[in-house]
């Protein structure tokens, strides 16, 4: 009986946290029916060696996530089609995709995949709060652990979910991005943002 009392609220919190991830992928489990994704995007902030920065953006976020009863991590994965990344100008796009991400090399290079996603314990409430975020990122054919922060906030009937984490591009075997004296620093920040609406 005691076990049931302590387990139930904990399960509620974890399940609610997972729902926010489900909405990014349109998962077909029972809880996800209460949510609909409206907007989603991925932004990679790339600081320049000469100062300032640019962003590579895409809205091509896809994947499926589900509850893994054996662990706190989510089963499934989120993926980004790298060819859809846009830096605002074609010269930069071409160099990023062809010379550094090398998307022409095959499937493992065409997409970036987040798996083993763990949003950890939420500090406040179900859909409003911060938590530590860990996952594994496959990029440029290389798998590495990543860690950062996730934030969820109520926006009327919707929930805004944002997760961000830094990565070192050299860890993924990507050569030093540099063109005519202007380069991207080794550490870039990946940010995933999406909105979800509660279904009635």
């Amino acid at each position, binding site marked *: 009986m005691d076990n049931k009392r302590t387990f139930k609220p904990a399960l509620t919190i974890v399940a609610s946290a997972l729902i926010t991830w489900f909405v990014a992928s349109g998962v077909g489990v029972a809880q996800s029916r209460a949510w609909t994704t409206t907007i989603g995007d991925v932004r990679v902030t790339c600081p320049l060696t000469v*100062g300032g920065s640019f962003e590579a953006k895409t809205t091509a976020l896809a994947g499926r996530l589900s509850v893994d009863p054996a662990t706190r991590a989510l089963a499934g994965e989120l993926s980004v089609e790298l060819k859809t990344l846009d830096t605002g100008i074609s*010269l930069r796009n071409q160099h990023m995709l062809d010379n550094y991400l090398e998307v022409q090399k095959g499937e493992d290079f065409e997409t970036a995949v987040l798996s083993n996603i763990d949003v950890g314990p939420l500090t406040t409430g179900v859909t409003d709060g911060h938590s530590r975020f860990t996952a594994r990122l496959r990029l440029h054919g290389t798998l590495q652990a990543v860690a950062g922060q996730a934030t969820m906030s109520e926006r009327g009937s919707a929930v805004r979910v944002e997760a961000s984490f830094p990565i070192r591009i050299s860890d993924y075997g990507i050569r030093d991005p540099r063109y005519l004296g202007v380069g991207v620093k080794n550490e870039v920040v990946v940010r995933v943002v999406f909105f979800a609406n509660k279904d009635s």
Partner: protein
Amino acid sequence: MTIRVCFVFAVFGLVVFSAGRAGAEPRFLSKQYNRCSSCHYSASGGGLLTPYGRALSGQELATTRHVNAQPAPEGNVSGEDAFLFGALGDHLGPVQLGVSLLPSHLHFASGSFSDSRNLLMNADVEGAYRGHGWTAYGEAGRMPEIRSEGPRLYSREHWVSYESRRGVGIKVGRYMPAYGIHFADHTSLNRSDLGFDHDDQVYGVEVSRTTDQSLLQISVSPGRAESIVKDDGGTSFNTTGRLQVDLASNVVVVGSGLYRDESLLESRHGAAGGAVGFAPWRRVTIWTEGDAHIRAGGGGTSLVFVNETAVEAFRGVWFKVSPQGRTGTDLSPGAFRWNLGAHVLPRAHVDLGLDFYFDKIEGSDKAFKTVLAQLHMYL
């Protein structure tokens, strides 16, 4: 020319259209360039393009060239993008050169008065060497006719700088001190009352700190360069400070301050202000700056507002609208300006510009209209 027209000339600095230093393009914030230093050797913008800036001009900005057609090879600029269309090959080594020519036609009218003139605003040779954190920079060319002075040979900028790997920099020499937004139109009201539209460089020392998200520049100087060279009595202590914070790759906030001590020619004066740059879409840039220009000796305080909204309608075809205003003081009337402009960049390093200025002076019924056509060739 009537006294009133002369006065309007003086207020708007129209006689110094001929003294411009073209090149700074804050409109490229819409392409996620929130710092001048990607494309220019000077962190304050304008002047000689870096190899990256040269490549970008040809590969990305020009209407009739596309990156997929002939991308610049890694490590050097070649072909149309390069100095003199690559005629010198690699013979210059790490030294970069550029030639800037700016033939222009100016027409202005107010009431029954009108006049036109053809100008060669710029004819400069610019050179730079950069390596191991050091940059040596110099320009030499023809100073166009300004007021009663005839054209002459001079060096607009020459300086040496060093920037450490931690982003701490120092610059010594003759340079443009950083203040506010360095619009391509040097007659913008945010700068014209500060001596930044003409005779504007100083001899001095600038220290800077660059990070991923901010740029701080502080300059101290014994006076404006031309006053020092000519010993005209206008020499006085100058200091400026400018802090730029990049809130995002398309959102920039800038705060600036200036103090200029009393000289034999001018009373003590200064300015302080802020600016915001925002690129809501990839082809639209909106800059807005507000300043207070403060002048001692009964000069009073004038509030200045400048907005510039630039839209790239088609690759290399830009339109801009720029409302500008300045409140009057006891010594000078207020003014309001509409500036409409169109710029076409058909090929690498060629910029065709057409600007229309509609100026109204406080207390005057008549408007002052100016049309400026420019061809900027950067070889």
